[in-house]
């Protein structure tokens, strides 16, 4: 176990900005990609509907 407490965990030994900045943006970008994928699939389905 590396962290005595949750605040120690969030503090990341003083590197919180760098570590959480990396993990945070990665999470946000992956979330956005999943949202875009779903939106694109929905609209592709809808357009197939109108053509047929």
């Amino acid at each position: 176990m590396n962290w005595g407490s949750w605040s120690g965990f969030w503090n990341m030994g003083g590197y919180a900005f760098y570590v959480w900045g990396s993990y945070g943006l990665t999470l946000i970008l992956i979330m956005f990609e999943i949202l875009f994928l779903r939106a694109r699939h929905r609209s592709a389905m809808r357009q197939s509907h109108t053509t047929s």
Partner: protein
Amino acid sequence: MNHPVPQPALWFGGINWFRYAAPQTFYPLAGTLIPWFGWAAVIFCAAGLYTGFFVAPTDHQQGESYRIIFIHVAAAWMSMFIYLVMAFWSAVGLTFNTRLSHMMASALAPTGALFTFIALWTGALWGKPTWGTWWAWDARMTSELILLFLYFGFIGLQAGIDDSRRADRAGAVLALVGVINIPIIYFSVKWWNTLHQGASVSLTKAPTMATTMLTGMLLMALAAWFYSIAASLYRVRSIILERERGAEWIRQHIGEQS
């Protein structure tokens, strides 16, 4: 004019693999595979994060800042590997004139660009506390930035040509020319004196890092693999629907859904 077109066949293990080169057979197969790869990504990511934050020890030189490695290396590997797979499908598409191969290449590009951006971003956030700079024009970083532009160029070129067959071929040629950049990225830390450190993991030497750190990194790399497979299969399904609009099998498929 109504001769049946001879279908190419590639028999292996009792299955004709060219069967799956047809969009209408690949579409449902991809749909079945997506949840498996998606959940595998979630499970490996959870295991990797747990190992990375709670099992792997603090680095005695870099303190906690090194924990960026668990995303950075996974994303950087993925950015190069996706490009290789994209170039592979482009080559298959150019050789056999299979539409699905080109669709697969198009489906991979945005996810590849995403991982390239993540590798650059996490590299900057790791470089600042360890080297004192966000960015340097060294060979590793510059060639990774070129990789991002190659992905953007591929996406832009395909989007800019209306005729989808011509767009496919132009994109495929760009992807194949750009593949020269991949060995440059990979070997840049050997060929040039870079600010970026050399490889800590290679196929020929024992890794120069603690086993638990390595385990966390490999788990995250596997999670990135599974995520990329799920995301590109998801995207290729949309591309198939967009390109095959009006086809009989899509009409049937849509009919079943509603």
